[in-house]
C-alpha cells in the first residue's frame, strides 16, 4: 500500500470508526428524547393513512392500542428513561418498536420517519457513558460510546432529505415557478398568493421563478455544505434562515423543526481523533490526529 492509499484509508477509518465523544452523545440523547416527544405526541386531526384500512386487524389495533392514552403514557415513560440514559440501547430499540406504528398516521409522516431512523442509528451507540442514570445496574460504566458511523448515517440522512428534494425540484416546471403558483392556488397550507407569478412584499414584487430557483439552490447547498467543516456554521445559518422564511410562505408541520434539529449532528463535535482516546500513549511524533501505526493495516 503506498503513502496516498494509506492516508485515504486512515481518513476513511477516522470517518467511520473514530470514537464518539461520550459527553456529546449524552447531550444528543437528551435532545433526541425531547424531540421525539414533541414530534410523536398526539395532536388534533390525527388519523390513519388509507393503507392501514387494507389490513382488517390494523384499524382495531390502532383504535384500542396505538391511539389509546396508556400507550402514549408508556412511550412517554420509556422516552424519559431513554433521555435519562438508563440502558439507552435497549430502550432505544424498544422505542423504535413502540413508535413504528405511529409513523403511519396522517400528518408529520416525514418528520416521524426521519426521527425514527435517527433513533435506530443512535441506539447502536452506548450513549450512557456520561449523564446517565444507573439505578440498580451492575458492572462498570461503559468507557467507550462506539464508532462514528451511526452518527455519519444520521448526517447522511439529513443530506439525503435536502438532496432528494432539491433533485425532485430540478425540473423546468418547478424552476419556472409554475408549480409554486399552482400550489399557492391549491394547497390550504400555503400562506401567500403567488398565482399572478409574483411574491408581493410591500412595494416589492419578486418573480416566482426567482423564488423557485433560490429554494432549489438553497436545498442543494444544505445537502452539501454541512460536509465542509469550515462551512458548517454558515450552512446552519442559511438553513435556519431558509426555514424561517418558509414559515411565512407555507405551513409544513414539524419537518422544518426536525431538519433544523438534525443540524446538531454536524454542529456537535462528536468525533474524537483516535489518539485522544488513550492520552497516556503517544502514537505519533507530529501529533497528527489521523495517524495510525502501520500495523493497523
Amino acid at each position, binding site marked *: 500500500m503506498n503513502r496516498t492509499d494509506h492516508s485515504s484509508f486512515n481518513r476513511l477509518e477516522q470517518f*467511520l*470508526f473514530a*470514537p464518539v465523544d461520550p459527553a456529546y452523545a449524552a447531550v444528543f440523547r437528551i435532545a433526541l428524547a425531547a424531540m421525539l416527544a414533541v414530534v410523536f405526541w398526539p395532536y388534533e386531526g390525527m388519523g390513519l393513512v388509507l393503507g392501514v384500512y387494507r389490513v382488517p386487524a390494523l384499524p382495531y389495533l390502532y383504535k384500542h392500542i396505538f391511539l389509546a392514552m396508556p400507550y402514549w403514557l408508556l412511550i412517554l415513560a420509556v422516552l424519559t428513561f431513554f433521555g435519562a440514559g438508563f440502558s439507552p440501547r435497549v430502550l432505544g430499540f424498544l422505542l423504535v418498536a413502540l413508535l413504528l406504528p405511529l409513523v403511519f398516521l396522517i400528518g408529520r*409522516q*416525514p418528520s416521524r*420517519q*426521519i426521527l425514527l*431512523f435517527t433513533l*435506530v*442509528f443512535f441506539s*447502536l*451507540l452506548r450513549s450512557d457513558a456520561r449523564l446517565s442514570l444507573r439505578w440498580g445496574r451492575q458492572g462498570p460504566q461503559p468507557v*467507550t*460510546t*462506539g*464508532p462514528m*458511523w*451511526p452518527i455519519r*448515517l444520521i448526517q*447522511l*440522512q439529513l443530506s*439525503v*432529505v435536502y438532496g*432528494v*428534494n432539491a433533485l*425532485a*425540484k430540478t*425540473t423546468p*416546471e*418547478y424552476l419556472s415557478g*409554475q*408549480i409554486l*403558483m*399552482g*400550489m399557492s*392556488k*391549491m*394547497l*390550504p*397550507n400555503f400562506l401567500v398568493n403567488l*398565482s399572478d407569478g409574483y411574491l408581493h412584499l410591500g412595494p416589492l414584487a419578486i418573480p416566482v421563478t426567482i423564488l423557485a430557483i433560490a429554494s432549489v439552490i438553497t436545498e442543494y447547498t444544505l445537502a452539501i455544505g454541512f460536509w465542509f467543516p469550515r462551512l458548517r456554521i454558515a450552512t446552519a445559518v442559511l438553513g435556519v434562515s431558509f426555514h424561517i422564511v418558509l414559515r411565512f410562505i*407555507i405551513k*409544513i408541520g414539524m*419537518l422544518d423543526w426536525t431538519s433544523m434539529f438534525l443540524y446538531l449532528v454536524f454542529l456537535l463535535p462528536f468525533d474524537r481523533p*483516535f*489518539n485522544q*482516546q*488513550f492520552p497516556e*500513549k503517544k*502514537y505519533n511524533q507530529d501529533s497528527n490526529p489521523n495517524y*495510525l*501505526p502501520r*500495523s*493497523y493495516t
Partner: protein
Amino acid sequence: MTEKSISSQKQTFVTASRQGDLLLVFLLLACMLILTCYRLRVYFQVTVVEVSVIRVAPDGGQERLPTPKQFRRMPIAVQPPPVVLDVLERRIRTYMDSSSLLSEAEPGTRFKWLIRYAFNSIHLDSQRVLLFKTDEPH
C-alpha cells in the same frame, strides 16, 4: 504493550468486528435510501384543479352555481392527476348524495360538474365532466 494490541484497543465496533460493522452500515444505508428517496420528497409536484358546477334546466338554460368551499383548495393536490381526480370524483358524488341539490331541483334538471385540471402547470388544458340528473318527469 505491542503496537498491534494498542491499535486493536483503539477500535470500538457496534458488532464484534469491522466487517460486521461495514455490513451493517451498508444494510442500514440501503434501507434509509430506499425509504427516504421516495417518501421524503415534499412539495415538488402539484395537480391544479378548478371545479365548477352548472345547473342545466329542463329547457336547456344554464346557471353557474358557486363552487362548494371544499372543492377549491385540497391537500391531496400534491398527488398526480389520477389520484387527485379519483378522490375528487368520490367527494363530488358524496356531496351530491348528501346535499339537497338533486332532491329540490325540478324534474329533468341536470347538474354538470366541470373539472378542469393540469399537472405541474397553471394552464388548465384537460377536463373531466360529471353529470347528475334528477328523475325524469313521468
